[in-house]
């Protein structure tokens, strides 16, 4: 029964026809949701057929869990295990491979961090993204990892324009509102509280808790824009593109604090340029590969955590080793639970008996991400093909070109196409996501892209679709600075939590910060000596 469950994960192959009858192959990835759903309905806990003891167990090999493993490894604590449900590590930073190019399955870039983010700088140094230091000691980033120009373009009224925001035929009031919007965001970037903390910082926990700014969390970003008189169709679209892209949420579903954070936190000062962006063909999968290689054989995939029960001086983790089809009980002295909240809620035993109030507070946006393998670049009118290609007014977020960073401008390529399902009712959106078959998704994608790329269909070789039922937690109004989120991050005895869900913002910086901090908390509890990367 359990072995059959585990077999439900992974990709399922599909073959179908485009609306004009072209035969295309592909797959649907993300089958683990079926597994999760059946796990939810699983009755009693099976008896373990194997027992093991280990100092530390890490649950979940997303960026947070892998960062915890990385921290242990750097500190010399090598006796740990990482349990991952899927057949590959990475969580929402997973990547795929194909004959043309590797490609991201979700998270696909990292903004250049400030030097003060030592953990991220250290990781980037390890993956070779930093080639040296400038005379002032600041990291110098490898040219082929910084996004290559042309970086981004937008399709608007039949033509591609440079940048994210089309300025063609813009009304003077619209232009003025955009200008004021930018000025406001720049001003926020410079604001600090009495203790010198930035109003909006990354990772989020460094931001000032001063109600002058956290009060904005009660408001939606849409309401804040309205209140500030920042109106106009272009500005609303632009701002909502940002919230959909980073948070999977509309203007009304996003807290004003989060909406402002998106812009202000990425500006070092009011006068600086927005942070450069680092990327790889496989997106943040490059970081995953590196972290996974450091974890080595201690990383176990297809490992389904079924139960986590705190004991006196230890934690019992019962999990299914799907590769062998046996149930294992791992007794760990400490646990880093780097699972998303909705999964943690199902396996932490004390929460089963008395569910804490905060468990129901996290709202997830489902996403559809598709990788389109093309035999050639499609023709387009106006500004040339960029890394990031956005369609004005589309429900999708457009596509990112996986081969862009490899340097080629001709021939076969892979487009990674993003579509957040931003309905107000995420449960219904999730049902729709999973009920929509592969062929229908393909038709929707082609329908969306066709207006910008007539003739795209004839270039399509494969369409691989990933259905993310719980892609990211929404920073809805009141959530980020509310009681629930603060409560939910508190350790449970020897269980330390790490996940972007605990920030309410699914950003790479947050994932790493949680992983490193949870691991350091464990290291401290064990009396280890190490140099902290986060304090």
């Amino acid at each position, binding site marked *: 029964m359990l072995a059959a469950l585990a077999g439900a994960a992974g990709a399922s192959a599909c073959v179908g026809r485009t609306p004009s009858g072209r035969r295309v192959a592909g797959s649907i990835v993300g089958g683990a949701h079926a597994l999760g759903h059946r796990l939810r309905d699983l009755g009693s806990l099976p008896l373990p057929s194997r027992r093991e003891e280990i100092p530390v167990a890490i649950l979940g090999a997303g960026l947070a869990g892998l960062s915890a493993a990385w921290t242990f490894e750097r500190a010399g604590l090598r006796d740990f295990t990482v349990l991952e449900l899927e057949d590959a590590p990475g969580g929402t930073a997973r990547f795929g491979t194909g004959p043309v190019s590797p490609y991201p399955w979700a998270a696909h870039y990292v903004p250049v961090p400030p030097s003060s983010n030592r953990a991220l700088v250290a990781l980037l140094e390890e993956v070779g993204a930093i080639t040296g230091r400038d005379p002032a000691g600041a990291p110098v980033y490898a040219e*082929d990892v*910084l996004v*290559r*120009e042309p970086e981004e373009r937008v399709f608007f009224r039949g033509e591609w324009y440079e940048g994210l925001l089309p300025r063609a035929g813009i009304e003077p009031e619209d232009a003025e509102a955009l200008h004021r919007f930018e000025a406001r965001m720049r001003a926020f970037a410079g604001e600090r509280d009495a203790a010198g903390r930035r109003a909006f910082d990354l990772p989020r926990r460094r931001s000032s808790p001063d109600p002058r700014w956290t009060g904005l969390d009660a408001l939606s970003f849409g309401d804040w824009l309205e209140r500030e008189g920042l109106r106009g169709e272009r500005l609303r679209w632009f701002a909502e593109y940002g919230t959909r892209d980073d948070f999977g949420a509309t203007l009304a579903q996003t807290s004003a604090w989060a909406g402002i954070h998106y812009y202000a936190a990425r500006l070092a000062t009011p006068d600086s340029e927005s942070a450069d962006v680092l990327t790889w063909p496989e997106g943040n999968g490059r970081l995953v590969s590196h972290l996974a290689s450091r974890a080595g054989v201690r990383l176990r995939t297809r490992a389904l955590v079924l139960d986590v029960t705190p004991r006196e001086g230890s934690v019992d983790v019962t999990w299914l080793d799907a590769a062998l089809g046996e149930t294992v009980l791992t007794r760990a002295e400490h646990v880093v639970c780097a699972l998303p909240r909705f999964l943690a809620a199902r396996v932490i035993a004390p929460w089963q008996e008395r569910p804490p109030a905060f468990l129901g507070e996290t709202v997830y946006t489902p996403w559809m991400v598709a990788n389109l393998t093309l035999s050639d670049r499609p023709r387009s009118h106006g500004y*040339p093909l960029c890394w990031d290609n956005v369609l004005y007014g589309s429900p999708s977020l457009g596509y990112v070109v996986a081969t862009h960073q*490899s*340097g*080629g*401008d*001709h021939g076969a390529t892979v487009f990674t196409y993003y579509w957040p399902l931003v309905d107000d009712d995420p449960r219904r959106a999730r049902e729709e996501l999973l009920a929509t078959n592969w062929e229908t998704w393909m038709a929707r994608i082609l329908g969306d892209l066709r207006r910008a790329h007539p003739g795209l269909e004839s270039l399509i070789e494969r369409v691989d679709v990933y259905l993310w039922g719980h892609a990211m937690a929404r920073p809805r109004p009141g959530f980020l600075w509310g009681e629930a989120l603060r409560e939910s991050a508190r350790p449970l005895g020897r269980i330390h939590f790490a996940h972007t869900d605990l920030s309410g913002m699914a950003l790479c910086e947050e994932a790493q910060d949680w992983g490193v901090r949870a691991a350091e908390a464990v290291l401290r509890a064990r009396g280890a000596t190490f140099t902290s990367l986060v304090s």
Partner: protein
Amino acid sequence: MRTPAVYLTVLVIATCGLVYELVAGTLASYVLGDSVTQFSTVIGAYLSAMGIGSWLSGYLQRGIAFRFVQVEFAVALIGGLSAPALFLAFGAAPDLFRLVLYGLVLVIGILVGLEIPLVLRLLKDVVEFKDLVARVLAVDYLGALFASVLFPIVMVPELGLVRTSVLLGLLNAVVGLWSTWLFRPLLGSPGLLRAQGAVACAILTAAFAYSDRLTELSEEGLYADPVVYTKSTRYQRIVMTRTGHHFQLFLNGQLQFSSADEYRYHEALVQPAFAARPQAGRVLILGGGDGLAAREVLKHAGVRELVLVDLDPEMTRLAKDNVMLRELNAGALSDPRVQVVNEDALIWLQHERSLFDLAFVDFPDPHSHSLGKLYTSHFYALLRRRLDPELGLAAVQSTSPLLARRSFWCINRTMEAAGFFVRPYHALVPSFGEWGFALGGVSPFETPAEPALASLRSLDGPSLRALFVLGPDMGPLPAEVNRLNNQVLVRYYEEEWRRWN
């Protein structure tokens, strides 16, 4: 009515009809490429339009002969002028080309589709139906055979597309005029018709007389000299023009060289580096698909191996096979020492592992991001790693130091940022103007003083040394380093050339 003469008419109009179709298909393949698609869609559109024409013939009730003659004049004018019209459309509004193409094909197809039903109706009372259908259709198909054989063998090679289409139009109009006598009994008063026919003939005669001028006004007219070769490849449009003894090569409308003075450019690109390293044995050329830089390299007996990396296989094939080019580059690309690689140079540099003594970088100017990336610090850093660590040198064409001075110094600065020791230089190439290069060494090196060969046309000791002297109007300007993630050079280049155009 003499029916054999009517069959002759049918034969001529059938020939003309198919030729218009072939002209449209050929011209579309010629400017758009992908001949399979162009011919399929043109033939499809044409045949279906003929169907529409046949169907519309049912609505013509009276004056069939009169209508038939008018259809002849109309098809003569529209079909005859279709080639110059399409060329002009492509030159003036390339975006609308397909619209004009299929519009013309549709109209001509409808008119041609009217012809045979009208002829059948004209003869239906004179000839028994079974014989009528048999003969008219047989002659019609025979005309198609004539057209399809004569078009590629005689018409296009001897006359070109414009003259072919105008001449066949004229023939069509003459036949129309002739049929006013042929169908005299069926026509009321032929005076008006004959006047119309005369006008059509006059217009087409004039068009034929001026067909050279019409050709010039078309895309071919974008070039100063007669076009002798064109090809749209996946990557670019290659055009060759010819004047007297000289010819020119254009890529995407930009002059790459004129055979009159290219030796000045290619000697300047290649020979200074050899003057510094006469013993170089392993040489790399990036770009330079015309084989002219290769010709200069192969003059040196010490060269054992030459790798030439050019994106476009059509370009290197042309350099190898085209008589004019092959003669100019002295068959360089067929030399056993030469290995041609058709790949994006940036991608090639990322995976190549061998070392070279000398490299020559000969790309078109940085007027797009996909060319600008080949002038970035990342590109030069990759190139530097492929050069001998002590003696390695790279010569880079770096646009005009006079007309695009900041661009020129930007390339210089970018090479320095990638670790090259750079000596900029220049040469006068009349077709281009004052032209710039950068000689970069992996290690410091002396300015070359004496060419390694005595047989050069533009360079001896003093003139070689003079290349490295830049006047004050070409002196350094501050410029940012051109990086993959800023591509400042494309911006500099656009700004500077805009001032001169």
